[in-house]
Structure formats: structure tokens, C-alpha cells
């Protein structure tokens, strides 16, 4: 079918090819290397492919993540390209303008990379460790729960609810994350529990 033109083959053929004979005869050298680069080398030749799902809308298109390295111990994977999964029944390899640009989402400059804390009245965030952050949050949660937990209502009915703290769940986390979140949040008696279904 279509000719495969890879860089290596250009170089192989350079001597015999147009670059070698005709061009040189015309008196300008160097053109054969140039022609060898006529076609940009196919950049995904040996990347590692991972099946994933587009995180945006609920069409849930299949995507393939192309990452550096072959999963060998010392090769640190980094995603260098993302493209539609041709096997996926819904999108069949296609992607919308968001899906097509997923790579820039993964590598966005404004992704969060370290835990940050902003104290009362402060103008800026400052970095803190995970340990500090989680300890502080757990403490704040417990103090508030202990203070405001409602075990029974005025009629003496057991209601076991905690209304002074709320939890807004994500819209793109996995079911597994969602279930774990559900267990943790409900076990504390939180009723102000919502997700992005409405907005």
C-alpha cells in the first residue's frame, strides 16, 4: 500500500537516490542528507502504550497514552503523546478538541504539585508537608465534629448527623475513589454531601 519512508531508509538509499547522483551532478552538495529528513521520523515508534479513558465528558472516549521508555527499571515514564483508541466502540479513535489536547492537561503549568497552606488573613499560599496538612485537617475535623455532632434530635430520635462540615465530591474520580470517599464521609455522619451532577 503506501510506501514507508523512514529516515534510516533515506540514509541507506542516499547514495543511489536522487540526493547522491543527480543533485550532486548539479553541483550542490548536502542535499541528500536533507532529503533524508524530508519526512519527519515517526515519533511513536517505540513508546509504551497505555489504555485510558478521557477524563472530560461522559462520552468516555478511549485514549491511548504514549509514554517514554519501555517500562525498564531505569526508564522514567513520561507521557509524550495522547491519541484516540481506535478499538473503542464509542469514539473509534476520534477525539474532540479537548481530548486531542489532553497532553497539555497532564503537563499543565498550573497543575498542583505540592501541598499548600494559607493561614487566616494571609495573602499567599505557603508549601507544607503532607504530614502537617493531614494532621491539621484531621484535627480540625475532629474538633468540629465533637463540638457539633447531633446524636439525637429534639424528639429524642437517633439521627447521628454532622452538619457543620460538608464534602463536595469530584466528578471525574474513579468509582473506586468515590466508594472509599463515600465510606469515609458517611461514617462521620456528614449529610452535606454532594457532587457535580447538578452543576
Amino acid at each position, binding site marked *: 500500500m503506501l510506501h514507508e519512508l523512514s529516515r534510516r531508509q533515506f540514509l541507506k538509499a542516499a547514495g543511489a537516490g536522487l540526493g547522491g547522483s543527480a543533485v550532486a551532478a*548539479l553541483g*550542490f552538495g548536502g542535499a541528500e542528507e536533507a532529503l533524508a529528513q524530508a519526512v519527519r521520523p515517526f515519533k511513536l515508534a517505540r513508546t509504551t502504550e497505555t489504555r485510558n479513558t478521557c477524563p472530560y465528558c461522559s462520552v468516555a472516549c478511549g485514549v491511548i497514552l504514549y509514554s517514554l521508555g519501555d517500562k525498564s527499571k531505569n526508564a522514567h515514564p513520561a507521557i509524550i503523546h495522547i491519541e484516540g483508541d481506535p478499538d473503542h466502540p464509542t469514539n473509534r479513535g476520534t477525539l474532540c478538541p479537548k481530548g486531542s489536547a489532553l497532553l497539555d492537561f497532564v503537563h499543565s503549568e498550573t497543575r498542583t504539585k505540592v501541598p499548600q497552606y494559607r493561614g487566616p488573613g494571609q495573602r499567599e499560599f505557603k508549601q507544607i508537608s503532607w504530614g502537617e496538612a493531614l494532621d491539621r485537617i484531621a484535627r480540625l475535623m475532629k474538633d468540629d465534629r465533637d463540638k457539633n455532632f447531633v446524636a439525637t434530635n429534639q424528639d429524642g430520635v437517633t439521627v447521628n448527623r454532622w452538619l457543620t462540615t460538608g464534602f463536595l465530591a469530584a466528578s471525574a474520580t474513579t468509582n473506586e475513589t468515590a466508594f472509599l470517599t463515600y465510606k469515609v464521609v458517611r461514617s462521620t455522619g456528614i449529610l452535606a454531601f454532594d457532587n457535580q451532577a447538578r452543576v
Partner: protein
Amino acid sequence: MAVRREEERTTVDRYPGRVRVNHWITAISLILLAFSGAALFHPSLFFLSSLFGGGAATRMLHPWIGVVLLASFTILFIQMVRYNFWTKADSHWMRHIGEVVAGREENLPEVGKYNGGQKIIFWLMTLLILVLFGTGIMIWYEYFGATFTIEQQRIGHILHALTAVAMLLVVIVHIYAAFYVRGTINAMTEGKVTGGWAFRHHRLWLRQEARKGVIDERQTPPRGHGVGPAE
């Protein structure tokens, strides 16, 4: 400017150093432009671009050389324009150009510093260089790509090409003449010509120069009139 009596010959000053330098700057620019231009003009001449360090460099240099040419030629113009106004004699001379080429200038009226042909070359060059520079600007993509519409640039290209061809023809005539008419080159190399050359081609000019006086640069004083020792 003067006529000089030297040991073996008599010479007439034709061009002072500043004019000669200027002429050669112009000449060299023209040749470089011709080569770099030709490289972009026809594939079989593209190899000339190697003289300038490759195609991209050629593309980059050609217009700048054009700027140099314009500058040096402008000075040249100022230096020479006053000798190049057209006269009746020039028209007459032109009418007998055939005899000039045949080398029979005797029967023609005496010629001043420049003959009609030279004046035509002078004015043609002036005109062509102006057109070349104008159209050159239009197609100088790096700086003027956005200034002119694509259609204007297309016109610019074809005009530039045609004018360049014309220019080359003029240059060829000029060089041809310089070589064909023996003794002419010295005018632009040493800056002076022999009395005989002046007598043959620009007699009127010779008279004017001689009238200004003759500088005798000989060591041994002359024995009466005559040229050198009798045989």
C-alpha cells in the same frame, strides 16, 4: 587632473582614486548580485549559492549587497553626472556607432570625456538600479513580506527578474567595451590613460586637459620637440 610627460610616454589623468574605489565597489557589488541573483534565478546556477555560504545565506545577503550597490552607485552618480549630459555631438556619434565598433573613429567629431555610448550606459545603469532596488524591496520577504500584497510581490518578482536581465546586458556591453577598446582598463586601474588613447577616443577632452598645462616628470630635459630619442 593633468597631462603628464613621463620617461617613455605621455599620460592623461582620467579618474582620481576616490572615483576608482567607488567604481570598483559598485562593480564588485554588481557581480556579487549577479551571482547570488543567478543562484536564485535558475536551478542550474544554484551552485553559485555555495559562494555565499549556502542558499539561506544567499537569500539573506543578496538584498543587503543591493543596498551597498545603491549607496556606492549614488556616490558614483554624483561624481559623474556632470560629464554625462547629452549633447548634439553625442547624437551624431551614436548615428555612426557602427564605425566606432569597426574602429574607424577618425571620421567622427572629437569626443569629450565620454562618448554617447558611455553616457547611455551611465543613464541605463542609473535607471535599472533604481528599478531593481524598488522591486527588490517589494520582494524582500524578511522585512517587507507584510508590506506588499502577494499579487504586488508577484509583479515585483517578474519585474526584478526582467530588469536584472537588462542590467546584465548593460554590464556585459560595458565590460566588453572596456576590454575591446585597448587601454581603457588603465583608466580604472591606474587612473590615467595614454595620450594616444585620449587622442583616439576623447580628443576634445585631451585638448581641454592639455590646455590646463603639462607636467613634465622626466629626469633628462628634452632635446627639442619629439618623442624620445630618434632611431
